[in-house]
Structures are given as C-alpha cells and as structure tokens.
C-alpha cells in the first residue's frame, strides 16, 4: 500500500514540481489540495511555498487552512519547504513585521545588512540563489544516505533564526551561518528546495515518504 501525501495548495508557488518530485522519489499517491478533509486524511503532509510570508498567512486564513496546518504539525509526518519553513516561526521582519504560525520560537530575518556588502568577489547578491552546502548538525531519518555538506538548491532573501539550538538540523554559509533545516518531533523543515535539488533532493523526499514521523532526537 503506497503512502498518501497531501501537498497543501494555498496559492503560493510552484506545486507541480513538488508533486512530480515526490512521485519520482518513491511509491506514493500525491494530492495537491486545499481541501481540509483530503489534507486531514493524508498519511503525510508537505507544506511548500515561495514568496512573502504576509501573503502566505493571508492565503492560509482565506482558505480556512490555518487550523488544518496546525493539526498536521502536531500529528503527522510534516515537511515544510522554503516559505513553508519560515511560516513555522513566531515572527518575520518582512513588511514591517509579520507574525507566523509560531510553532517554533524564533524569527525570520532578511540577509540585507547582515551579510558582508563587499569582498574579494564583490558584494554577496540577494536573493541567495543557487546551490549551496547543507551541513547536518544532527542525525535524523531524513538525512539517510545524504552526504555531509551535500549540495542543495536555494532561492530566498530571508532566513530563519530559531531561538533555541535544539531544533536546528542543518546549517549553511552565506556571508553568515544560517539554519537551513529544522527538526522536532514529527516535523522537518528545509530552507532549500529538495524538489529542485536533483538526486540529493529526491533522496530526501524518498526518506520523507518512508518516515514514520518519529525521532528520538539523538545524534
């Protein structure tokens, strides 16, 4: 019996790539959906997204999905991608301050003014766009068969800064060291795009499809 995955469709970004990559990664039935019942019935949930957090929160509420997302965050294997990771924090400094879902204590910050504006190769560009290394700082079932400092594809101008280090599953360097993956209980969230990160991204998605949502937190 293949596992069922709901990719939450709240109008923020390219969900076709996510669903195609999941289907390619492993044996699963993917529904890209905004329907409450289908999301609740799925074995696992992917919460993707690109763009602005303010729009993300507004769309979630407009579609009456906020409580559904909160329920899934507490109950089933959950994968947040990019904006779907940032939305988990308390607060983003975007748009003069935007509250997020607040299931992980911390803030979402802009790179501007926080990374060197000059260097041997000139200033670092924003967005942080392209392939960068992901340094695992904790063991986790989703890292299975993924090499330390493996390459993943990023595109973002904001990054998460959790209040406590325990939730950090990986870091990446771009003028500063930022959190590129978070993990707690049944939740895993990544700043990069596994659906665009070639074989390593597909492997991470395959690991997610097999994950039972448990993690004892040990290294």
């Amino acid at each position: 019996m293949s596992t069922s995955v709901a990719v939450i469709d709240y109008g923020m970004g390219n969900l076709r790539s996510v669903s195609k990559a999941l289907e390619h990664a492993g044996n699963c039935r993917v529904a890209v959906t905004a329907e409450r019942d289908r999301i609740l019935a799925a074995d696992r949930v992917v919460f993707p997204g690109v763009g602005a957090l303010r729009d993300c929160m507004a769309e979630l509420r407009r579609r009456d999905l906020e409580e559904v997302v909160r329920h899934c965050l507490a109950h089933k294997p959950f994968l947040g991608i990019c904006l779907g990771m940032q939305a988990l924090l308390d607060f983003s400094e975007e748009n003069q301050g935007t509250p997020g879902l607040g299931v992980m204590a911390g803030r979402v910050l802009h790179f501007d003014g926080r990374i060197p504006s000059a260097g041997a190769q000139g200033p670092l560009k924003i967005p942080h766009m392209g392939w960068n290394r992901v340094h695992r700082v904790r063991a986790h079932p989703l890292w299975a068969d993924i090499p330390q400092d493996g390459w993943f594809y990023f595109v973002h101008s904001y990054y998460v800064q959790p209040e406590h280090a325990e939730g950090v599953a990986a870091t990446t360097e771009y003028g500063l060291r930022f959190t590129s993956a978070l993990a707690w209980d049944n939740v895993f969230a990544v700043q990069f795009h596994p659906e665009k990160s070639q074989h390593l991204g597909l492997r991470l998605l395959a690991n997610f499809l097999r994950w039972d949502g448990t993690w004892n937190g040990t290294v």
Partner: protein
Amino acid sequence: MSGLAKRIIPCLDVDRGRVVKGVRFVDLVEAGDPVVIARAYDGQGADELVFLDITASAEERETMVHVVEAVAGEVFIPLTVGGGIRNLDDVRRMLHAGADKVAINTAAIQRPAFVSEAAARFGVQCIVVAIDAKQVAADPPRWEIYTHGGRRPTGIDALDWARRMAAAGAGEILLTSMDRDGTREGFDLALTRAVSEAVPIPVIASGGVGALEHLAAGILEGRADAVLAASIFHYGEYTVGDAKRYLAASGIEVRL
C-alpha cells in the same frame, strides 16, 4: 564566507517544441527532443537549464507549455523559460507547467511595470529580466539595450536599465552581449562586470562562449554569478562536467 557555487547553465533554443541549432552529443533521432537533452545535461551536472522559445507564431507557443511540463516531470533542477512572455497569464502558465523562473525581455521594455506586477504576484525569485546589450561607445564604454535579436536599438543605457529592473523586482538578470553572441570569442567581460557591480541581484553572463577559459573569465573577471552557454555543450566539445572541473581547478566553487 560563502559556500554558494557558481552555476553553469546550458541554454536550449526551442522552435515549435523541438530543440534547434543542432545538439550533436545525443543520437540524431533524439537530438531535437527537449526531454532527452534536458536529461542528458542534468546527468552531466548542469545547475539549471534555460529554454528559449523562438517559435515565431503565437498560436504555436502553447507547445512550449507541453515541453516545460514534460521536462519538469523528469528533470529536478531549476528551469527557466524565456521567449514570448508578455503578460501575467504567460508567467502563470509557465510556472504552472513546472518552470521555476521566466525570463522577460521585450515586454519589460514595452511596459516596465510588467516586471513589478509579475514580481509582486509570483515572487521576485521567479522573475528573470533578460537584457540584450550592445556596445555603443568605447571610451568610456557604454552599452545600450537592443531588441529583436540585436537589430533594433532602444536608446536605453544598459546599466541604467539593469538597476531599474532590479529595483522593479527582478530576482536575477540574464545578460547577453549582442556583440559577442555567436562569435565564440568569450563574454564581453567589461559589460558583465559593469552590470554585476551595478545591481544587488545575481547576474547570468551570456553570449560568446567558445572555450572553457571563457566561463572562468566570466566569473573571475566579469563577476558573474552564473554562466550560460549553448554551442560548446551542444556540439559535445565539452560536457558540463568538464566545464565544472575546469572551473574548480581555477579556484572557483562549483557543485561537483
């Protein structure tokens, strides 16, 4: 300080759903199939792919949507689609089909607000502004924007335009030197560096690559964040992997 890799991006011209300008490293039968070629470049380690739709008739542009769908279903690296992106609906169709970014050229010149509207609606990360520039003065050097494959001048200064497009919400600039395009003499490094230093967003250098050292020069001297090439890869002279090993040996961070 920054672990971000410099990107190598093969570019494919597509006419009515088929890759043109002869890709020769795959079987003749498959040489026009966008999926086969995309898969081959993916296997070589391409960091992204750019598809330029050069289909002349608007009616046949729909074909490009199917090309993007087919490629995005099998190749899991970022895809940019350019050519004929004229309104928000074109952007939506391409992103929905599986493109990650669209490249906007003529439509931005005709109506610059299109870029801000597209960025506001879909996010800056998926809006690439393509700039075709030609040198019009030598000392000090000046470049102007051209349209229609470099035939029609606009009188717009290339650096001003790049700054304006970055401010309007472009997430990236695809910069082509019309003086170098097709010459295999290397990028216009002065142009590339001037634009890259003028804008806070990433710049992809394009036009003129005929050898691997041109790719390295585009990054080291031109300060490009990514380099785009067509013929050196299509004719099988070099693989993307060869190019990356060359860049790595030149001290450039690449994804190997």
